[in-house]
């Protein structure tokens, strides 16, 4: 992870494999097949939006990428390693839909602990402190650093969770609905943050069921009932379907898919 900084800026790393590559990805949960034979790629240094209605398998796909999902079959490569490989645990940041922080600790105590897991040892104490301050600023929670997490609002809590994922500057960020319950100003600020992270080379895979967020992504994966409807850029998607918005494009694709199934 730290070797990257040693490279000269602008060095093109060949071969430029995608950050995530899936072929024939299938996930079974109990009696249900949640993901069916998916093929897709998530390019490096870009924001890929994973969109689709609730329950379509977005979270399962993200959990597979992070390596916390059981019963994954097919090929799934993350940063040139099989998903879930131990060396990936420090290189991939992950935010679930649950707050996933300790409600009986302050924001700073939460971050201090997770930073110590990522970067252990007394020698790294200064680096940890700087990292915690950085992520607090990035999610705009510096003024709430010493508040008990349990006393925060839902939106603030999800930002604490995001801050934890930003610790250690991971190469790949997997964010499951990070903007749910946030006001429009905060949502815009977070999307600005995502774009600035991508500008510095971080790959982001962000799920949402709000279609207007799709317009802010470089690439889109549209999902429905465990299958991929599209893997394209927002512009190409609108052009291909002859629609004005991603939402309309999504509906168009659903209708087409339904029509082919009934015929």
């Amino acid at each position: 992870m730290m070797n990257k900084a040693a490279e000269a800026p602008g060095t093109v790393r060949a071969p430029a494999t995608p950050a995530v590559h899936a072929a024939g990805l299938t996930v079974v949960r109990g009696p249900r097949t949640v993901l069916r034979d998916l093929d897709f790629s998530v390019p490096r240094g870009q924001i890929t939006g994973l969109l689709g209605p609730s329950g379509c398998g977005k979270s399962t796909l993200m959990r597979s990428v992070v390596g916390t999902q059981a019963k994954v079959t097919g090929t799934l490569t993350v940063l040139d390693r099989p998903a879930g490989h131990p060396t990936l645990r420090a290189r991939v940041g992950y935010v679930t839909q649950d707050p996933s922080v300790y409600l009986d600790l302050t924001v700073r105590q939460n971050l201090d602990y997770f930073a110590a897991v990522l970067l252990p040892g007394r020698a790294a104490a200064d680096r940890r402190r700087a990292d915690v301050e950085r992520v607090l600023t990035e999610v705009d929670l510096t003024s709430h650093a010493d508040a008990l997490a349990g006393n925060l609002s839902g939106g603030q809590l999800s930002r604490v969770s995001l801050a934890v994922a930003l610790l250690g500057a991971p190469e790949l960020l997997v964010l499951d609905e990070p903007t749910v319950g946030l006001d429009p100003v905060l949502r815009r600020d977070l999307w600005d943050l995502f774009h600035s992270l991508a500008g510095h080379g971080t790959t982001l895979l962000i799920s949402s069921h709000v279609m207007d967020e799709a317009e802010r992504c470089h690439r889109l994966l549209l999902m429905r009932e465990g299958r991929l409807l599209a893997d394209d850029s927002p512009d190409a998607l609108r052009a291909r379907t002859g629609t004005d918005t991603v939402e309309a494009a999504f509906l168009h694709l659903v209708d087409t898919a339904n029509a082919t199934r009934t015929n």
Partner: protein
Amino acid sequence: MNLSRTTATAGRVLRQLLHDPRTIALMLLVPCVMLVLLRYVFDANPATFNSIGASLLGIFPLITMFLVTSIATLRERTTGTLERLLAMPLAKGDLIGGYALAFGAVAVLQSLLATGLALWGLDLNVIGSAWLLLLVALLDALLGTALGLFVSAFAASEFQAVQFMPAVIFPQLLLCGLFTARDTMQPVLRAISDVLPMSYAVDGMNQVLRHTDLTATYVRDVLIVAGCAVLVLALGAATLRRRTA
């Protein structure tokens, strides 16, 4: 495993406890209050208080740590922090070791208070060294932590976790020799009590109660309790899965 990550985890668990002074007070004071109660329940019969009191010094830490650990780890599982930690470079041993360290420290404090009160406040008459009592108490606390960690994997809610207490602890309590000597029990029960760790914890306490020197039986008891704690901790580690359905 990594020592820094283990101690960071222990520090985090203790910091969580510090935000909850009422739990700390309950953990530390309830055993003391129970001992005082027991002392005066057997006011006319100090010999009975002696043997039951010594046994209870070994049983309290086990029960307290069992309850606290099972609820704490269940919370880790249900709030998503466990999934997050296991997606990070944290070894399962770091997590379990962290819990064992943190609750072990609380157990030392609890045992110091309870043993001190029993020996000097309530005139519990122990012939052996108080340090040997403390050692058994500490190992019992570790065993309680281990058992709590293990059963939390089978509890889907706090309601279920609390119900595991009577299921796992009460049979041991009945069979450990606290109420009647184990060799006077029905042979089948006697045989079962031979494989339950609490029997050895209570026996260890009674060895200290009755002997000035370190006895071979005490050493055996301590080794068995410690071995069980390690075994159950390993089983607990096996219930932590990085990949879940």
